[in-house]
């Protein structure tokens, strides 16, 4: 299923904050068309890894390549220009602005002709039309595209963030705990959205704590521990307890115990 060439690849990433080593030689691959989940305990380096991949921070060592080419992102904007969009768990949506403005935040389009070039007038109507089209394509129901994002529910807000990412990503989408702050029903909606993004052919990197979601969605699971990638498994080859055991560094006997428990529970 996987083509041999990864679309995004990282080798030996190191990031230190003073004495703390957040990334300690982490490797990473993302293949076209897949949902890759990243799991790991708190402090395992998940967030640091995706921040390095999305340009939010710069690794001290190591290399990243996109489509086979070495890249150096100095800011999130560089990553966006390269076609990488990121959804943060509760960030990056401006509540005072309406939905269309949020989708176009940072890449607003201006009116044609002198109104746009000289007076820098925004093409509000065009942006709303385009945002509405995006929402329909992704099957997100929103009453009014002119509604301030602050008036939306948590799930709808996250829907805006996902739609925004899907609208602009040309290469891949990164999602950092997109459902962490949501209720059950809203979580389901966002998970559906993530599947639809993959159906559009965009590979997705999904960071999540929620093992059932990870096992439901992911094609492959990248497991982080102590700043490194310790394993890549798939929902077909490994069970949840096995993945958790690798993640927490449980000894083989502890793993056996966990598996016995699960079997006796069945």
């Amino acid at each position, binding site marked *: 299923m996987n083509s041999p060439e990864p679309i995004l690849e990282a080798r030996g990433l190191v990031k230190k904050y003073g004495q703390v080593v957040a990334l300690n030689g982490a490797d990473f691959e993302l293949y076209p068309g897949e949902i890759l989940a990243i799991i790991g305990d708190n402090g395992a380096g998940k967030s640091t890894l995706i921040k390095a991949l*999305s340009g*939010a921070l710069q690794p001290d060592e190591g290399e990243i390549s996109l489509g086979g080419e070495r890249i150096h992102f100095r*800011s*999130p*904007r560089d990553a*966006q220009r390269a076609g990488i969009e*990121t959804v*943060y768990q509760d*960030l*990056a*949506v*401006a*509540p*005072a*602005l309406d939905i269309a*403005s949020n989708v176009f*935040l*940072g*890449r*607003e389009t*201006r009116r044609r002709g002198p109104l746009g070039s000289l*007076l*820098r*007038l*925004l093409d509000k109507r065009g942006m709303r039309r385009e945002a509405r089209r995006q929402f329909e394509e992704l099957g997100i129901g929103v009453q009014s595209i002119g509604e301030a994002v*602050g008036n939306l529910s948590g799930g709808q807000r996250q829907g805006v963030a996902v739609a925004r990412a899907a609208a602009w990503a040309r290469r891949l989408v990164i999602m950092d705990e997109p459902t962490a702050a949501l209720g059950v029903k809203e979580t389901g909606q966002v998970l559906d959205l993530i599947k639809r993004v993959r159906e559009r052919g965009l590979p997705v990197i999904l960071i999540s704590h929620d093992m059932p979601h990870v096992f439901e969605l992911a094609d492959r699971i990248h497991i982080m521990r102590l700043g490194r990638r310790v394993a890549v498994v798939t929902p077909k080859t490994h069970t949840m307890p096995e993945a958790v055991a690798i993640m927490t560094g449980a000894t083989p006997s502890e793993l056996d115990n966990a598996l016995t428990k699960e079997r006796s529970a069945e």
Partner: protein
Amino acid sequence: MGPTGTLQVVRRVITAPTVGPFIALVVTMAFFSLKTDRFFHAENFSLVLQQVMIVGVLAIGQTLVILTAGIDLSVGTVMALGQVIMTKLAVANGVPALPALLLGILVCVGFGVLHGGLVTGVRLPPFIITLGTLNIAFALTHIISNDLTFTGLPKLELFWGRTFNISGTDFTYGVVLMLVLYALAWYGLNQTAWGRHVYATGDNREAARLTGINTDRVLLSVYTLAGLSYGIAAWLLIGRTQVGDPNAGQTTENLDSITAVVLGGTSLFGGRGTIIGTLIGALIVGVFRNGLTLIGVSVIYQYLVTGILVILAVSVDQFLHRRSG
């Protein structure tokens, strides 16, 4: 338009952020109209507008700064410094009016650039930076002026105090300039990408940065434009007082500009507010001062009232902020 359409329009109007301040303005005006029959006259309104134009223009800069979750305590003293430079150069140094004015404005812009540079480069809190520049500008005003008042100013420097007549009532050109500046600020904030970036940066600087907005550039532009508005206010101040007075514009303007912004519904937490609200807020402050003077309340009590007013307005803001999370 169907019934739901009408309902939506009604809802829009009721929830529009400028409605609260507007009602407050109307209530204030009604109050003073009942209290004294000297209030509700065209000449008195013209006077209120003249009194408002200085604080009104300062409040434009203050609005931009507060929208980015900052605050500028130095507005009044920076304006006073600009005014002293403009008048001293023209009177004592024989510099022609235009370059004297431009230099004064440039100094105010320089303070704005300094604020923006320290906020983005050194990442200091705007409160501390502008508390420092408040004192620096205050000291420079008195050092440069030698505590002298400059009179016999060139015509160009006094221009904004000149009046024109509409059906028997005199209005100053300065008031027109103020309204034009508000229109420009409205345009920038509501019709350009820059405006959206100002709101987004004020709402959450890190989130805006991660969205791909160059937040440092946004903040630098905001503080620089704020400095420009203080420079223009300095020129208006000369038009209003007709002299270059080192003691002008230093006592009430700082708090009044903040009061105007807050009364106008702009949140001190950043990201929420309107420029039209600020204009209404400035009018409320102006009407209050004018009305209290007309009914014979002494200046000291006016301080008392505006002090209470600003704390009340900030409390409402805090309350709304908690509720909306």
